[in-house]
C-alpha cells in the first residue's frame, strides 16, 4: 500500500486512527493494532513477501536474544552477529543484487547464465538495515534486548517508515513502544506534517516527474537538446527532493499521530555550501546509519594515518552507492560523491571564509550532475545526458519543448524552489515570536492546509501520474 493512494487516505488511515484511539486505555492493544495494521499495510502491496518480513522479524528476534544471552562470551556473541549479518545481507543480496551479479558474471566471462527474474520486495533495504542496527545495538549494549516479539515486530514493520524510511534506530523507538504519550499537540503537528508531505509528493513531485520522465526518454531517443538536458536535470533535482522528503514528512507525521517521534530525515539540503554539508542534510538517517555501523567501526576520521580515513570514506560511499540500486551508475554515483567529499576534506573547503554564494553554486552544480548519474538507466545514458548538458547534443541547443515544459509547470517550479529554502521555519518563528503579520498566517494556515489536502486528494482520485521511485530501494 502507498500513502499516496485512495485506499490509504480514505480507508486505512481513518480506520487505524479510530481503532487506535478506541483502545487508548490499553498500551498492549494499541501496539497490537499498529502491528497488525502495519502487516496489512505491507501485505496489501506485496502479499507474497509478508512471509519474508515476518521471517526476518522472527530470525532477528531470536538472534537478538542470543546476542544478549552470550553477552559475556565475546566470541559467541560475535558469531551471532556474524550470522545475523549473513542472514540480513544475504536476503538483501539475493533479492536486490543477485540478478546484477549474475548478469555481470555472464557478460564478463562470456558464459550463458540464466538470470532469475526476482522482484525486489518494497522497503527491503530499509527494514533489513533496521534489523541489522537492532542486533548490533544489542551486541554493543546500547539498547536492552526486546523480549517481546510483538514489539520487535512493531519496530521493524511500523507502517509510517516501512516503505521509504526514515531508517529508525531501535534506540530511538524502544522506549516509545511502551512509554510514548499521545497528545493533541503531537497529533495535530503530525496531521499537518502528513498533509504537507502528501502535497509535496502528489502535487509538486508528480508534476515535476512528467517533465523528467519525458526528457530522459528523449535522451534515450537521441532527441534531447541542451536546454532540455538542463531543465530535466534541475527538474529531477527538485522531484527527488520533494518525493523523498515528502515521504519522510508523511512518515514522521504519521508517527506523531500515534505518539511516536522519529528523527528528521531532511534539513533543507539544497541550501548546503559543500557536498559534505549536503550529506549531513540529505537522507540523514542513512548517513548516520553508515557512520555508526561502518565508518566509525572502521576507525572513522580518528585515525593516525589519514589514508585510512580516505579508505573508510571510500568503503562508506561504495556501500551508499550500491544501497541505492544494483547498477553500475549507482556505484559510480557513490564514488562521485566520495571524490568531492575527500577533496573538500583535503582542502578544508568548509572552513574557507567568505565566497558563500560560490560554494552554494558549486554544491548545487555537483549535486545536480550527480542526480543525472543517479537517474539514468546506465552509465552510458548518463554520459550521453551530461554531454548534452554541455552542448554536445546531436539535437542542438534549443527545443520548443523546453519553453512548453517551463510554461506548463511555472508555478510548481517557482513554489518548489522557494520551498527548498527554510521559509516554513521562518514563518513558524514569526508566529511563535508574534512578529508583525503573524495573525494573518494563523488564519491562513488551516485554510491553506485543508485547501492543499483537498487539491492533493483530487489529484489522487483523478489518478494522476504517480511514479514510485523507491522500487530500487
Amino acid at each position, binding site marked *: 500500500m502507498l500513502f499516496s*493512494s*485512495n*485506499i490509504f*487516505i*480514505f*480507508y486505512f*488511515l*481513518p*480506520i487505524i*486512527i*479510530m481503532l487506535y484511539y478506541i483502545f487508548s486505555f490499553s498500551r498492549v492493544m494499541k501496539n497490537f493494532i499498529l502491528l497488525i495494521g502495519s502487516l496489512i499495510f505491507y*501485505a*496489501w502491496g506485496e*502479499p*507474497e513477501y509478508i512471509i519474508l518480513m515476518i521471517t526476518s522479524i522472527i530470525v532477528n528476534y531470536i538472534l537478538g536474544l542470543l546476542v544478549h544471552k552470550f553477552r559475556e562470551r565475546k566470541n559467541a556473541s560475535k558469531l551471532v552477529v556474524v550470522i545475523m549479518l549473513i542472514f540480513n545481507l544475504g536476503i538483501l543480496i539475493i533479492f536486490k543484487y543477485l540478478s546484477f551479479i549474475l548478469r555481470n558474471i555472464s557478460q564478463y566471462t562470456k558464459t550463458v547464465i540464466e538470470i532469475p527474474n526476482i522482484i525486489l520486495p518494497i522497503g527491503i533495504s530499509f527494514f533489513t538495515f533496521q534489523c541489522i542496527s537492532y542486533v548490533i545495538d544489542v551486541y554493543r549494549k546500547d539498547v536492552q534486548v526486546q523480549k517481546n516479539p510483538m514489539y520487535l515486530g512493531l519496530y521493524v514493520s511500523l507502517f509510517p517508515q516501512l516503505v521509504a524510511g526514515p531508517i529508525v534506530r531501535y534506540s530511538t523507538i524502544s522506549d516509545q513502544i511502551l512509554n510514548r504519550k499521545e497528545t*493533541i*499537540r503531537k*497529533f*495535530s*503537528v*503530525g*496531521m*499537518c506534517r502528513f*498533509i504537507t508531505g502528501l502535497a509535496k509528493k502528489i502535487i509538486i513531485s508528480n508534476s515535476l516527474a*512528467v517533465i523528467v520522465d*519525458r526528457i530522459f*526518454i*528523449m535522451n534515450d531517443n537521441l*532527441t534531447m537538446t541542451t536546454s532540455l538536458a538542463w531543465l530535466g536535470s534541475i527538474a529531477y533535482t527538485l522531484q527527488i527532493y520533494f518525493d523523498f522528503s515528502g515521504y519522510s514528512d508523511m512518515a514522521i507525521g504519521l508517527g506523531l499521530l500515534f505518539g511516536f517521534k522519529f528523527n528528521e530525515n531532511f534539513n533543507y539540503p539544497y541550501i548546503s555550501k559543500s557536498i559534505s554539508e549536503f550529506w549531513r542534510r540529505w537522507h540523514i538517517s542513512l548517513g548516520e546509519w553508515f557512520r555508526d555501523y561502518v565508518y566509525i567501526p572502521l576507525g572513522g576520521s580518528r585515525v593516525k594515518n589519514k589514508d585510512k580515513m580516505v579508505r573508510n570514506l571510500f568503503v562508506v560511499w561504495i556501500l551508499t552507492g550500491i544501497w541505492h540500486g544494483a547498477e553500475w551508475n549507482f556505484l559510480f554515483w557513490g564514488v562521485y560523491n566520495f571524490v568531492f567529499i575527500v577533496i573538500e576534506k583535503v582542502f578544508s573547503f568548509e572552513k574557507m571564509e567568505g565566497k558563500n554564494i560560490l560554494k552554494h553554486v558549486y554544491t548545487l552544480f555537483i549535486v545536480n550532475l550527480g542526480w543525472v548519474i543517479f537517474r539514468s538507466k546506465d552509465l552510458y545514458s548518463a554520459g550521453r545526458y551530461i554531454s548534452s548538458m554541455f552542448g554536445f547534443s546531436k539535437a542542438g541547443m534549443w*527545443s*520548443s*519543448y*523546453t*519553453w*512548453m*515544459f517551463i*510554461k*506548463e509547470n511555472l*508555478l510548481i517550479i517557482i513554489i518548489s524552489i522557494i520551498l527548498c529554502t527554510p521559509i516554513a521555519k521562518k514563518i*513558524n518563528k514569526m*508566529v*511563535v515570536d*508574534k512578529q508583525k503579520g*503573524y495573525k494573518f498566517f*494563523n488564519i491562513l*494556515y*488551516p485554510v491553506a*492546509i*485543508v485547501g492543499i*489536502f*483537498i*487539491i492533493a*486528494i*483530487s*489529484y489522487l*482520485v*483523478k*489518478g*494522476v*501520474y504517480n511514479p514510485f521511485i523507491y522500487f530500487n530501494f
Partner: protein
Amino acid sequence: MKEFFEKKIITAILIIGILLYFLIVNFSIIYKPLKELISESEVNFSNLDNLISEVETLVDDKLYNRDGFINFYGYNQVILNKNEENNFEVVKDKDGYLHYTYFTNRAKDISGYVDAVKKFKEGIKNTNTEVMYLMAPDKYIRGITQFNYGMPYNYANESADEFLKKLGSNDISFYDFRSNLLKWDISNNEYFYKTDHHWRTETIFEAYSEFVKKLSDKYNIESVDYYTDKSNYNFETYKNSFIGSMARKTGIYYAGIDDFTLIYPKYSTDYDFYYRTNDFEHSGKGDFKDVLLSKEMLVESKSISDEVDKYSTYLFGNQGEVHIKNNNNPEGLKVVFIKDSFFVPFCAFFSNIASDIYMLDPRYFDENILEYINNLEDIDIVFVAYNPQSLSEEFFEPLNNT
C-alpha cells in the same frame, strides 16, 4: 507558542472530520459491492494479489464524489493555465479543443499498413467488388487548429498523407475527407466536439452528403439529392449535454460540455438491424429512429458518471459485427465497412442509400474478416474506413491475417 499549536489543532480537527465523513459515506457505498466481490472470489494466498487489485479498483471506482474531485482537478488545471493534463493524456489547443497526442518528431512508418490493405484487396474473391479506403479527418485540422508553442504534435495528418500516397501508387482507390473539409457548411472549429475525439454528427452528415454524391457518379444511386437534403432530416440539438471522452478524464470545467445534435430522417424508413459482439446479439426491425438509434442514451448528463457517451447513440456504438438491411431500397448498394468509431454514424446515414450494410470493427470482430466478406454475395464496395490516428497495428493486423 499557544497560537502555533492552536492553528494546527484546528487544522487537524478539520482534516479528521473530512476523513471520518468520507470513511462513513464511502463505506456505506462500497459495503454491498465489496461483500459481493469477496463472496464471488476464491480467497486464497495464491489469489490474494488479484483480489487486492479488484478491491482497489472497486475502491477507486466507487469513491464518494469521485466526479466532483475530477471536476475540481480539472478546474485547478484551468487556474494553473495548463494546456496539458496528466502527463499529456489530453492537450488543449488555442481554441480550447481537447486532443489526444504524443511525442514524436516524424510521421509513422505506414508501409506495413499499405501492404496489409493491398493483401486484403487481393484476397477479395469477387472481382466486381471495389475496395476503397476512406480517410476521416483528424481533429488537428490543418489551417484551423493551433497548438500552443511547444505542445507535442503527433504527425497524424502527415502519416495519413504518406499512407494515401502509397495506396494510390498501389492502385488502391481512396477518398480523403480532409480535402474538402473546410468547404463544408460548418462554421470554423465546429467540425469536432470540443471534449470528444470524434467529429460532430453535423460534420459526418456533410461528409456523407459529399461522398454519396461523388459515389453516384459511378454507381446508380437513386434520389441522391433527396437523401442528402438537410430539410428531409430532423436536427435535434441537446444543448450542453455531451461530456466527451476527453472531458470524462479532465472534468467538465477543463473544456466545458458539448452540444449534441441527433440527425435522423423525417421520411419513413424500414430497417432490419442486427449486431453481435462476442456472445451478445441484438436485433430489431422498424424505423430508423426506433431501430438504428438508442435514444435512451440521450439523457441529460451533468456529471461524468452519468455520461453514457452520446456518440454511441448511433447503432449502439462500436460492435463487432453489424448488418443493416434497408427494406425500402432493395436495389441499393451492398457494401461492407471495415471501420473504426469515426464511421459509425456515417454508416447510419449511408444506410439511406444502401440496401445492405455490413460493418466489422477489427477490435471486436473475432472471426476472419476476409473469409466473412468472401462468404457474402454481390458486394459492390468494401470500404476500409479509419481516421488518421487509427493507422496502427490494432486496425491493420486483422487485415493481414488472411
